């Protein structure tokens, strides 16, 4: 049985354990009294807060139960916020208005995003455009009012595929949809003016296929600017999720096994040398966007996560060392499953990590970044997208996500413009700061009978998916058999079919359509040819300057890969003098190219 099969058993056993505790609380008088005592204690200690109208409310809402069995069901089955199995929340107080000043978030949330109530913008706005200096300027603009600088970087197509800006036929794609990065010099330019070693800075990089190379370039850039001592201080996240690329997003550049090997080499390095770095963000977002059902999204994300843990632990990296450095990224759409999707995921992760992998409390946390669904937004009558995103935001926060990105309404047809980015950001502020939905009371909307029903149904469906993957021989075997891929494609097809036949209502598209489906007249952010040419010229200069050194560094890198050593140290050296495309090309010579699954 693979570890995933054991996770299924562990969750089933845990569910049984909860029922046993309920029974015991009702029959074992002493145990019952203890539970009741603890319950009353907790209730008595809950601080009271006041709404602007003066209404007193508890800062933590608990169900109205006073019977030991039900109390046991709550304690063990759900857990207080911040307590195992973390169904309601990973931390005790999530979006609550601070009592005094902002408390030490550091203690609570590590480097994952937090809401800073004073900040106007949500803390991580995904950004990347044109060349490094342009994105750098945008970064400075976005963080101008923020004490903490949390940059989220989007890369252009050539970078995501690990190729250079001078490659055949990519000219028009330079700087489109993200920033163009070819060399360590671009990387320095990208974060110029930010203190990369500061505890108030963190960089997030959304890239997977060539992630280890980009990571090496980031480290090289930081070292050039701040010296080698900065390395252990670096904070941030790199996506580096290979499984979801193969399952959904198609940005894989090496065959699966060497891709995983380069990933583990990087994780081994960051775990030891960069303890504050999140080397992998296990992402369901792209699975959801590729058209999966919500349950598939949650199930594949969790199972991918467990597969990574099994892999890293298999290399002898202690689970309590890398476990707390894993984070998750989910899509939040409008389907009913989203009412509890992340809650259930958090619970399954905690149980699996604790009971199968022996992880301690910090490594049990499913730390979650959510993004509202891009797929749910449409071009037709696009202002409706504001409402869609708002509803999705409510669902995301009901699930106690640790951070959230709200999409701009103009996304279906362009790179978001500033007007709509602002509205999206303000949507979050209205929800968290202006409205009273989330700021007074933890668990404000948790635990309704409806939510519980969704939780049960979603958990059962996720475990079914696990069983199927287990039957196929585990995650890697299932991926190679295209299991997840075909499931996602099938779900996507069904979704389109439902829109087409009207069983899935989309307002303004197949229902209440006013005919206003012209793409609105917007100014599109396009990279000028002159800039694209500038990038190509810069790259040529870099390559010329480093030609000799690059050759030696690539030979050394190839040697390390051939010998099966951890190749990350040689990758670090190569990142100093080689371009992204040179490194990718050389690695592909040794390990091959990814063969698409069609």
């Amino acid at each position, binding site marked *: 049985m693979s570890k995933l099969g054991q996770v299924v058993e562990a969750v089933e056993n845990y569910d049984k354990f909860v029922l046993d505790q309920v029974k015991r609380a009702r029959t074992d008088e002493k145990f019952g009294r203890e539970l009741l005592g603890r319950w009353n204690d907790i209730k008595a200690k809950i601080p009271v807060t006041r709404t602007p109208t003066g209404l007193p409310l508890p800062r933590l809402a608990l169900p109205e139960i006073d019977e030991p069995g039900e109390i046991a069901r709550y304690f063990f089955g759900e857990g207080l916020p911040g307590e195992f199995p973390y169904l309601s929340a990973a931390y005790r107080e999530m979006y609550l208005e601070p009592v005094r000043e902002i408390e030490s978030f550091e203690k609570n949330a590590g480097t994952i995003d937090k809401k800073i109530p004073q900040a106007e913008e949500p803390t991580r706005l995904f950004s990347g455009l044109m060349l490094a200096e342009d994105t750098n300027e945008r970064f400075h603009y976005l963080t101008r009012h923020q004490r903490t600088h949390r940059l989220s970087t989007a890369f252009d*197509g050539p970078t995501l595929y690990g*190729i250079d800006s001078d490659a055949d036929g*990519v000219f028009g794609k330079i700087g489109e*949809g993200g920033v163009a990065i070819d060399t360590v010099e671009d990387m320095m330019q990208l974060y110029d003016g930010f203190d990369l070693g500061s505890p108030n800075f963190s960089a997030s990089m959304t890239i997977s296929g060539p992630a280890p190379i980009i990571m090496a370039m980031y480290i090289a850039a930081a070292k050039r600017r701040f010296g080698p001592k900065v390395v252990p201080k670096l904070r941030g996240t790199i996506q580096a999720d290979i499984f979801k690329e193969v399952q959904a997003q198609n940005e894989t550049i090496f065959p699966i096994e060497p891709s995983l090997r380069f990933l583990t080499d990087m994780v081994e390095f960051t775990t030891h040398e960069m303890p504050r770095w999140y080397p992998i963000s296990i992402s369901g977002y792209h699975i959801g966007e590729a058209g999966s059902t919500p349950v598939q999204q949650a199930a594949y994300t969790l199972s991918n996560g467990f597969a990574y843990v099994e892999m890293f632990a298999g290399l002898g990296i202690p689970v309590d060392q890398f476990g707390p450095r894993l984070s998750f990224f989910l899509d939040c759409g409008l389907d009913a499953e989203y009412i509890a999707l992340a809650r259930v995921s958090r619970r399954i992760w905690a149980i699996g990590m604790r009971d199968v992998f022996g992880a301690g409390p910090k490594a049990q946390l499913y730390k979650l970044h959510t993004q509202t669904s891009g797929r749910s937004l449409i071009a*037709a009558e696009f202002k409706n997208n504001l409402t869609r995103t708002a509803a999705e935001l409510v669902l995301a926060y009901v699930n106690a996500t640790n951070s959230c990105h709200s999409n701009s309404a103009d996304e279906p047809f362009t790179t978001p413009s500033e007007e709509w980015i602002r509205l999206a950001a303000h949507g979050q502020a209205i929800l968290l700061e202006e409205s009273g939905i989330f700021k007074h009371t933890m668990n404000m909307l948790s635990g309704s009978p409806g939510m519980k029903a969704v939780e049960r149904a979603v958990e059962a469906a996720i475990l079914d998916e696990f069983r199927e993957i287990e039957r196929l021989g585990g995650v890697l075997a299932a991926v190679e058999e295209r299991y997840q891929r075909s499931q996602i494609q099938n779900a996507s097809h069904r979704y389109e079919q439902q829109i087409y036949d009207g069983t899935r209502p989309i307002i303004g598209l197949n229902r209440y359509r006013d005919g206003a489906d012209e793409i609105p007249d917007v100014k599109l952010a396009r990279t000028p040819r002159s800039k694209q040419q500038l990038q190509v010229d810069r790259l040529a200069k870099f390559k010329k300057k480093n030609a000799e050194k690059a050759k030696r560094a690539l030979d050394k890198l190839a040697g390390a890969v051939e010998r099966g050593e951890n190749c990350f140290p040689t990758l670090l050296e190569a990142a100093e003098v080689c371009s992204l495309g040179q490194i990718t090309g050389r690695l592909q010579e040794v390990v091959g190219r990814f063969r698409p699954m069609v």
Partner: protein
Amino acid sequence: MASPIRILTAVPICDGHDSAINTINLEFIRHGIEVIYLGYHRSVTDIVRAAIQEDVRAIGISSYNGGHIEFFAEVVNLLRKKGADDIKVFGGGGGTITHDDAAIMKRKGVEEVFFAGTSLEEMVKFVHEHYGKPRAKRTRPKSADQELAHKLTEIEDSYAAGRKRPTPNAQRRTSKSKKRHQTSNFKHQTSRVIGFTGPGGAGKTTLIDELVLRFLNRNPKGKIAILSHDPSVVGEGALLGDRATMINSQDDRVFMRSMATRGQAGGLSPATHDCLALLAQLNFDNVIIETVGTGQEAMPFQKNGIVDLTVLVMNPDYGSRLQLQKIVMLDLADIVVVNKSDLQRARTAHTEIEQRLEQNRPVRRSFGEGGRKQQLIDTVAKRHRDPGVDRLFELISSGRDGALRRPAAAARRPYQQKRRKK
């Protein structure tokens, strides 16, 4: 009956958004169109080369990652440069391509751009209306690839029209060429023809692509032709998707043609024989022919006699041992490959197939073949630099002068005829 419309579809380089194109491909196929699907993350060069070799009527590009104005224009320009501007370009990108963009793209020679909200029916209708009519008179081909591609189309068309041979017109035009095209005459065969067959899902396509990679590396000037088959029913569409998997075979030194079987059973198309005969005399070092996934009774290469070397690619999961007795190709293949030999069952499969091959030997000896041993090789084609594939490659390469040198066609024939009579 006219040949089905052939079009090529692809997603541009640095773009992995293949969900729309997958849906559109299926819709095209349902409406009688043969779609050669090149896959996602494809360069301009790869797209244009494939379009010329496949001699399609049009290229459909689905772009969601920006840079579409340049990319589409580069495809159009390269087609022009190669003298292939009879191949039209159309495409779409949901909401990412604005009306202004589309106007520029059309000015630059793109025939049509579909916007978000275009129904699948409209796209199918567009393709039928614009590319369904017979071709205008063709201009003189500008490259060897193009000339060959045109001839292959003539052969396919003539079979579709119910004629057995290319029209006199085609004959006349080809006769100008030095490399004379004479169907069913193998005197001029200069290339070595290697046939790959086996059940669907055994990994033939991946295996061939790995062999091509080795060939290109070993022979810096060598050239290969590939005839690849996918099934279709008479008058219906087909998805010809091998190119998407064969990443190493998208190369200027590889001429690849994807053929739909158009209703013929047995793994090949009615036109295959003539197409292969043509390719075999054109100075390719190797001509590789890949059948569709075949059944137990198939012996796709026995009729034409052009194939020098036959390779049967098997999957370890063939069912019970008894099934092996029914697979005719196990009697005939020069090389039997058990691919996916990393699967648990592979070792058993190897042993059982080895025993099955042993049975052939006495029979063969009695027919004067001197007990020539069929080779059995285990491979994991999906693995880069797999030693099994290396061995297979060496075996095939050495075959030119060695033990596997075209033996055998003559010696084999009487045996096969006898066997068939039985």
